[in-house]
């Protein structure tokens, strides 16, 4: 599932449209949109790191996360010298001076984000009038989003995509909604392409049949420690591509599963282990 956080509706509108997201009509503290198939949910946080942090926490708490299959994307505008869309590899919070690093594992050059598009970014608390360091990007949400999302997601499941809307302005009113939406529209296809590529990285691994494990553990009358041992045997069998069911069926046919006593269960556990290794 993709969790997308945008500060402003104008930045989000082209994505909402391209992804055919529906507005959540329930009373929500933040304007929220979701895909019918639950593959994506988008939230409008409002401006500033505190609003962004709260909205991220709301989003990830309400919809829940699974480390292996979820991505958080922060998409929005920023001030900078070089136009276009940038992938962020370092976020500095100007208030605290702390730095944050999303993991840069994925090669997104085929999506239109070559490594030369990468930049470091500074999160500030108000719109900048000029670029203190022309090599950096300036915006108002990323550090809050990173810090909040870090409680839920690992650093390789967070992506910060920022497009340059200006080079700093003395009056924030000079940055209009129309300008921001137009800027976002230009980058929508790249964002969609990135999402498609990242989906490939979200394949779920096979896991232990927990129902079979639980019923076996109960049938064997196992203690907590022995349950842990049994689970480890299930894990091992999975990695070695050993189908554990026929082995359990054999015990059943022998009348040893379910076990009559704890001692009998322990003996079956020992034998199962011998059969697997």
């Amino acid at each position: 599932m993709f969790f997308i956080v945008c500060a402003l509706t104008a930045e989000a509108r082209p994505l909402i449209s391209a992804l055919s997201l529906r507005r959540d009509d329930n009373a929500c503290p933040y304007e929220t949109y979701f895909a019918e198939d639950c593959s994506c949910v988008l939230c409008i946080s409002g401006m500033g790191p505190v609003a962004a942090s709260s909205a991220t926490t709301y989003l990830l708490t309400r919809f829940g996360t699974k480390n292996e299959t979820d991505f958080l994307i922060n998409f929005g505008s920023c001030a900078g010298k070089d136009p276009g869309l940038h992938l962020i590899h370092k976020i500095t919070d100007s208030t605290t001076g702390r730095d944050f690093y999303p993991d840069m594992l994925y090669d997104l050059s085929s999506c239109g984000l070559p490594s030369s598009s990468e930049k470091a970014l500074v999160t500030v608390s108000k719109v900048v009038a000029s670029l203190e360091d022309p090599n950096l990007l300036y915006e108002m949400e990323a550090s809050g989003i990173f810090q909040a999302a870090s409680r839920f997601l690992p650093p390789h499941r967070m992506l910060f995509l920022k497009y340059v809307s200006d080079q700093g302005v003395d009056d924030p009113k000079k940055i209009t909604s129309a300008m921001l939406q137009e800027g976002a529209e230009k980058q929508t296809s790249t964002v969609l392409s990135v999402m498609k590529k990242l989906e490939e990285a979200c394949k779920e691994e096979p896991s232990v049949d927990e129902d079979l494990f639980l019923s076996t553990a109960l049938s064997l009358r196992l203690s907590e420690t022995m349950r842990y041992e049994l689970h480890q045997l299930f894990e091992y069998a999975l990695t070695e591509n050993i189908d554990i069911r026929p082995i359990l069926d054999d015990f059943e046919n022998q009348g040893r599963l379910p076990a009559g006593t704890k001692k009998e269960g322990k003996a079956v556990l020992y034998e199962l282990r011998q059969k697997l290794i």
Partner: protein
Amino acid sequence: MSSDKSLYNFPFSHIYVEERAKEHPLTKEILTRYKKSQVIPIRHHKDVFNRPRQSFLLQKGAPSLILARNPGASVFRGAPVCQDFGYDHFYYCSTARNCIFDCEYCFLRGMYGSGNVVIFVDLENTFSEVEALLKEHPVYLCVSYDTDLLALENLTGSVARWIEFTREHEDLTIEIRTKSFRKDIFEKIPPCDRVIFAYTLSPQEIIDRYEKRTSSLSDRLSAASFAMEKGFPVRLCFDPLIYCKNWKDIYSSMFSEAQKYIDFHQLKDVSVGSFRISSEYIRKIRKDFPGSSICQFPYENHGGVMEYPENIKNEMENTVVTLLQTLISKEKIYRIDLEENI
């Protein structure tokens, strides 16, 4: 995790450089070799290396490089689970963390939260630490425990520097443990009888399955043989012995192969030990690598160390020791004894 390599960045596509390491000559030299990489300034290597919830597994596929200065002590007393080879003052040092190889059973997976590679560029400070120890007593130092230094030699040149340093300090003996195939270093640098090159050997089937990106058995043997030819003491480490159903066959083939390359009587010594790892590390590794059979094997916990069941462990070690006794004198065979070490 997707196995599609095109999804991931190339190794060291991102190089994080600590502020206080950026002017070091080795940093500058390394950066000239990676012109296509993104260089990201950082305050402290821990800001990147110690981030919570990193994926060691994914990072191994696209590792970043972190160049830093060693923040404190870099020389430590050897751990009980490691073989001391009869030396009284057994130490190891950490001048790099993680390596370019990807062994599924590596204890570093349990020790570190990151699969990225850290190189501490200030080797001269480690040398000072070793010199301070040498004033107290002779030192036996393993310099390639937290990494494979020889595999990183192109980048760091530190093996050559360690050899020269050891030559100048007669109470120092070092071990350089490796799975690398490279031989050029033995041609470039005159031998020193206190620099032991220790090759970890495994059957090719184990290498193929569990020791990704390492060199083949024959390449390791060829490199070991070349080192001996050039006058360096060589140690063969049959440690860790890895269990699988046909272990007898594949280890027997490995010894046949080894004898083609190595005159065992000329070896400095050999070590034997079955796979073992701290229970704390295996807990983390099992969580991070659910699909790895070597991690998920139902080991037994012996005093905080996870080992194969006693019968498997003894049979494997005894078989290998018996075989080695036909090739090399008993005194040169070192078998790990955890109870004695702990």
